[in-house]
């Protein structure tokens, strides 16, 4: 666990592009909110592994979003149901339903559609929030923390030294 946190901090403190960090969070958002067995998750997994997104950050965010998805399950179901029953969208859904590819993706599952729609809506603001946050962290917070007394105290603590040693190892 310490290693994962150290990795995340390393990424935040490194020169990694904020867009890459945001991509990891967004992919974790889609995969974490969707039911695990949803077919589109296989495609997302391919993206996570092939694209140079940070895996540690992805794993932590995936765990967090999966927990949120479990808590919000009834609302996601209700959202998906409302979308699938919306009168104006019946033509679209019927056309997709009669197409094998979309049926395979399970778009007509209330939870799959509800969570995917929620992830789509959240992904844009989340992307900008993460990139803005990473930039601001690097410009204003990082140097301040490095020089702060708290950090000095942390480094002198047994657990802090251990964490810092892991962090430093990742640096090499």
């Amino acid at each position, binding site marked *: 666990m310490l290693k994962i946190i150290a990795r995340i901090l390393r990424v935040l403190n490194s020169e990694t592009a904020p867009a*890459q960090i945001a991509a990891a969070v967004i992919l974790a958002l889609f995969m974490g909110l969707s*039911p695990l067995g949803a077919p589109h998750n*296989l495609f997302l*997994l*391919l993206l*996570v*592994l*092939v*694209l*140079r997104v940070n895996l540690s950050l992805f794993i932590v965010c995936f765990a967090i979003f999966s927990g949120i998805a*479990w808590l919000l*399950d*009834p609302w*996601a*179901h209700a959202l*998906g*149901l409302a979308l*699938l*029953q919306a009168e104006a969208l*019946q033509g679209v*859904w*019927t056309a997709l*339903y*009669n197409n*094998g590819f979309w*049926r*395979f993706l*399970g778009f*007509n*599952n*209330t*939870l*799959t559609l*509800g969570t995917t729609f929620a992830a789509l809506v959240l992904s844009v603001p989340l992307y900008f929030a993460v990139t803005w946050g990473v930039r601001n962290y690097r410009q204003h917070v990082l140097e301040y923390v490095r020089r702060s007394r708290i950090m000095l105290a942390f480094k002198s603590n047994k657990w802090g030294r251990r964490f810092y040693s892991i962090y430093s190892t990742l640096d090499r």
Partner: protein
Amino acid sequence: MSQWIRWWGLGLFLLIVLIIWLGTNPLIKWSIESAGSQAVGAKVELDSVSFSFNPVTLELERLQVTNPAEPMRNSVEAGRIELALDGFALLRRQFIAENMAVEELRFNTERERSGDIGGRTLSRERREARRAEAEAEDFDISRILPGLELPDPSAIVAEERERLQGRISELDQEAAAIERDWEERIRELPDRDTVDGHRARLDEIGDMDRLRRAAATRELRDDINDDLDRVRSLRERMREDRERVGELQSRARAMPGEEASRLMPATGLGDGFEGITRQLLGEELSTWILRGLEAYEMASEQLAGRRAEEEDPRPPRGEGEYIRFPEDDPLPRFLIKRAALDGVFDMAGNPIDFDGRIENITHEPAIWGRPMTLNIDGRGEGGAELAVNGSFDHRESPSRDELEFSLERFSFSDATISDSSRLPIILEQSQADFDGNLVVTEGRLDSTLNSRFTGARFNAGAGDGGDVIDRLARAIEGVDAFNMELGLGGTLRSPEIRLRSDLDRIIGNAIGDEARRELAQAREALEEELQAELRPQVERLAERERQLEAYQEQIEERRTALRDIRP
């Protein structure tokens, strides 16, 4: 570009896909076993599963479905099941099998290890239902045999008290309403003052001159006639009401006798031994029938669409719900178009080799538009022939299932008819012909099964059952041919079983007068107990009748007085 691509990630992804590919068969095996165990309430096991993509087929080797009531036995066992699947439909999340072959199908086979899952995957409701079922099975037929334990009248009355009180209180309430009605109605009766008034007017008329006397007499006669009309109407009504209260009272007085006659057969001790066969054989038959109906209900729910109607509207967490939209060529989510079966059905120790076809197996028959049909033919040793034909139509409400079956020249050997400790009955040998039908309309049962047994040889009794039991055992052993007619009514959940047989007469004749006297005494004791229980209510009814009698005396007295003074 290379800044964004992680090539080893592609390798890892391919490795994950390969692992999923290799894990398909174990995953399917696990899915079938866990879903099956959950549905049955006991272990469902497979030796192996083989799924191939070209052509898309699924092969299951040695499917075992444990009998939840007997975990060391399988309800069903199939040596091999092969399904030819529609691959495109699978991608559309539909399990459509053009053909299914079920080979080496057997029932009630022994297991090597217990298939009990200890209720681990069962819901609380199902666990409780199973416990209740196990308690219900704790029954010994010897408790209801004549001469063993005659019923305790007090116990029967205590058991029936609420119902009896309800019945008699209905009678009393009706009588009380009549009595209350008369408390009001009697005020309409001309009172004594009115009669005295008429009498005074009559006296005055005697002193009048002729002209005035004629007019006054006419006027008095009219008034008295009016009063007499009222009295007549009340008298008529009283006659009807007294008749009704008398009838209610008679019914109350007759109730102990009627109830004794009704309750004695319910304990298995009716006069003339009508239904003794039902008592002797009914427990085993009931067990077979209830198990059969349970299996039928489960199969019907799973295969013919009833379960789909009862689904909880809220899907389980993490699963969601698949919404349907109009399709050009709609298909159910699960469909087996044709299934060919072959196997062995073991009945009373005799195997019957059968083969047959089931068509249109689906849990969404309304979408598929065709009912499930079943045709099975079988042959057994000694030329026994089995034929079963049926259709299960759940396309629309009311659902209707029809099944016709016949089994001819079937040889019984060492079939346990009753495993009572006091009166075990074994049919050592017999040949039988059965034919019947079963119709289930929206859960309501209507079925008959006729059977004719010839060349029967019974072995009955354990030798220490007492005089009556011994005579009963000898009577049964003397039977070499008999008929039985089994009827089913009620519902699947609460079936009513009727059994008629000429064994009743044979056994009744053999048991003799002594047992009949014993039963007559038991009936008398029960009737006396019932009389004592119902006496207060019967007396209250008599009291109400006496009150009506008093009212009637008043009516008669006024009537006589008015007629006496009418000029």
